[in-house]
């Protein structure tokens, strides 16, 4: 019996389910069905059923980051969170919101915006429609991470369902909590590999009274780096600080938020800006390219790495100065893509850094090509996977070392 029929027989009308289309494929791996549970109880029952029946699944939100992660070993079922989109509780006074994971970031921000608050998360530069769950599952942070931190530091509670049917309720809604192990962390950035995250509680920030973007244009790496460094080390508190290199043109983008006077003074301390374009659109490099690498490097090694990536054919470099994060973007996949990645990864690792491939042709996306060789704690990670997903049905093969 095919999977669609089995799901219909098992869950009847409680579970919206349809046959998968070719466009539902993940990294070219096609699935048989797409299920979109509309409540947490059904989601839990579905994941438990997948565990019992050995049906592999990949959770899917807005699909904006589905290109990240290694090519799945198998994906019988897509679990779409599109119907899990309720706001559970917006506690304005506590500056937190709890919501189901299928809600979009835009919808969340709309809900809290009325109370002059916002969710300090970002979509990738080029695509909209990212969901809370997708951002958390990938621990995705854009350039405002410099001030607002990454999901890892913002999530205070979450619910996840495991393939053995358990519902894990990590953390709570308070902003400071050391009771027991912080189970939030192992699910954040786990790429759906340990279970399905159904609900998240996250910290909010108050709206900024003022906001401004400074943009300077430079002719050389040296000039651009000197400017970024002056902002990073000087009397500034940037929300974001990025060097954007497009062949031989270099921009430095700095975003300032906060009280009006402070924003104004920081802008005045800088030379005349090139333009005041919205930094988000200007630097939408995070989501771009046919081959895209994300490196993390100590500061002193970053410039050399960025230049090497350019020499090896990258059209664009986006360097989040102060975070040590560099995106190398190739608008076309070079013929020697594997060599390029191998070289750049070796250079980063020699300096204590790392490279993750965020986007690449499907056939290249082995776990080691995407993530690099497994880290020293891999035996612990495998043990965790075997404990939390003994059935090995949660996004199998997507993660480090083929977990």
């Amino acid at each position, binding site marked *: 019996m095919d999977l669609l029929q089995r799901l219909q027989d098992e869950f009847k009308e409680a579970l919206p389910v349809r046959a998968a289309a070719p466009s539902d494929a993940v990294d070219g791996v096609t699935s048989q069905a797409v299920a979109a549970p509309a409540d947490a109880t059904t989601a839990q029952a579905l994941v438990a059923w997948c565990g019992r029946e050995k049906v592999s699944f990949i959770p899917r939100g807005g699909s904006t980051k589905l290109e990240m992660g290694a090519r799945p070993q198998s994906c019988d079922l897509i679990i779409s969170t599109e119907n899990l989109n309720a706001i559970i509780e917006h506690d304005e*006074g*506590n*500056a937190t919101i709890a919501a189901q994971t299928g809600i979009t970031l835009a919808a969340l921000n709309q809900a809290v915006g009325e109370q002059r*608050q916002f969710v300090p998360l970002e979509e990738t530069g080029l695509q909209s429609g990212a969901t809370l769950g997708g951002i958390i599952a990938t*621990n995705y942070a854009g350039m405002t991470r410099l001030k607002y*931190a990454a999901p*890892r*530091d913002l999530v205070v509670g979450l619910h996840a369902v495991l393939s053995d049917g*358990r*519902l*894990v*309720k*990590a953390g*709570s*809604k*308070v902003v*400071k*909590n*050391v*009771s*027991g*192990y*912080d*189970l939030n962390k*192992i699910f954040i*950035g*786990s790429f759906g*590999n*340990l279970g399905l995250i159904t609900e998240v509680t996250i910290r909010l*920030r*108050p709206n900024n009274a003022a906001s401004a973007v400074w943009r300077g244009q430079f002719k050389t790496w040296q000039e651009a780096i000197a400017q970024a460094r002056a902002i990073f080390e000087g*009397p*500034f*508190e940037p929300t974001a600080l990025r060097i954007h290199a497009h062949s031989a043109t270099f921009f430095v983008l700095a975003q300032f938020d*906060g*009280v009006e*006077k*402070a924003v104004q003074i920081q802008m005045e301390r800088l030379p005349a800006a090139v333009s005041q374009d919205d930094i988000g659109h200007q630097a939408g490099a995070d989501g771009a390219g046919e081959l895209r690498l994300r490196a*993390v490097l*100590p500061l*002193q090694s970053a410039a050399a790495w960025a230049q090497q990536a350019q020499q090896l054919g990258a059209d664009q470099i986006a360097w989040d100065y102060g*975070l*040590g*994060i560099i995106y190398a973007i190739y608008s076309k996949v070079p013929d020697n893509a594997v060599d390029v990645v191998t070289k750049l990864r070796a250079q980063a690792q020699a300096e*204590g*850094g*790392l490279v*993750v491939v965020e986007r690449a042709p499907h056939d290249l996306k082995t776990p080691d090509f995407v993530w690099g060789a497994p*880290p*020293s*704690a*891999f035996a*612990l*990670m495998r*043990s*965790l996977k075997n*404990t*939390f997903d003994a059935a090995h049905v949660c996004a199998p093969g997507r*993660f*480090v070392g083929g977990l």
Partner: protein
Amino acid sequence: METKIKQARSARSHEPRTLVAPTPLVSELQAIVGVDGVIAQSDDLMVYECDAYVAAKQQPKTVVFPTTTEQVAAVVKAANRHQVPVVPRGAGTGLAGGTLAETDSVMIVLSRMNQIQEIDIPNRCALVEAGVVNLHLTRAVSDQGFCYAPDPSSQAACTIGGNIANNSGGPHTLKYGVTVNHTLGVELVLPNGDVVWLGGKVEGIPGYDLLGPCVGSEGTFGIVTRAWVKLTKLPEAANTMLAIFDDFDASAQAVSNIIAAGIIPAALEMLDDVFLPCIEQAYKFGFPLDAAAILLIETDGLKEAAAEEAARAAQICTESGAREVRTAKDEKERKHLWAARKGAFGALGRTSPSYVTQDGVVPRSRLAEMLKEVKRIAQEHDVRVANVFHAGDGNLHPCILFDERDTSQLPRVLEAGEAILKRCIDFGGSVTGEHGIGVEKINLMEYAFTPETLGAMKDLRNVFNPDNLFNPSKLLPSSRGCIEVGKAYQNAASAIEKGMTFLRRGVPL
């Protein structure tokens, strides 16, 4: 009671030390760390029978002071061969009994691993050994305009390794985050003696975030021997204010109003009228002795931003009923204020012979409501409570005062404490914001978490510590939940009988 202790000590001192032959395990440990790196004599071990949670005491069998990661690993392997539990310890300032020894255990004290191995200012991080004292790291980088942000009140004594074990906080974590937000990577000696790194010098190392739960795992995942930690740029300016309230509830409401208004102060602390006379006597700052509560508010950042946020916070305090808002006029006065705040617990001895402190957290929106509950619970149990807390985080430290000479008080004290923490959970909060579970709050874990979630925690512990020989009976309740509760009370009661003083010294928070 004093006499009893003296008698006990003199009895022990008659034991002829030199006649005790080292056990095979002690010999092995001495071979690893040297003779002066091992303590195995009962009277020397007394120092290590408890941390700052003194209600339960147990001497370890042996205490070891390794100086390298390799020595730690070798000690762990030796303990494994002899199948004895291992208990890690830093400076022993923990408040929840997280370093309480097990019978027959080897205690590994990290105090001799106290080197700052690398300071990397451009990358804003440092590599430190676990025994480095928190404040020493800040002192080492302050000339260059940096600090190590987590600042527990015990920062002059507590170690980075201990901070990591407990995911410690402090007043300035409101804006800057707790230890987990400042830990980039740890070198961990696993319970089987293997050494691994979780995380590293840079963020984002692929794989599950095992570093996250390792921070705050209270020594149950292994022993952290070294860590890469973040350094934080000191703010250009800081404004510190004292808002004085005649009405306690109004001060709590002011906290909620400040958070709701979208201000993120660097610190937002509250002290009540029981604390005020004590710290005034101790620190002579000029605190108002007739006030019902004070808020200590600090804003920082760029000069203009810090000033504007301070003005707004002051206005909200006034609107919420503050009778006066004072601003620290210079850095000296600011430091004086903070010294008084961080010494608050130590000053409490002036009004009460003993106290137990709690560490509950509630949503900031329910702070005023929770403080009323604390009062109600105190009345119901006929105990006095002094309040000091990290109000901006919703993190309460109600101190229940008592006199251990009156043994009838203790059950009421413990019951009141438990009632307060249960209310914190009912309000959507937590039983501990920064002190940890240890042995103290282990019986509340089943109230706070579902069996499935506790099961997942146990699974996670087993990934690291499958034989549960590493700091066993901490953090997670065993299957004998009810017995554990009974034991906690028994331990506390027997501590009283022995004439031990409850948390009398300057206790950090």
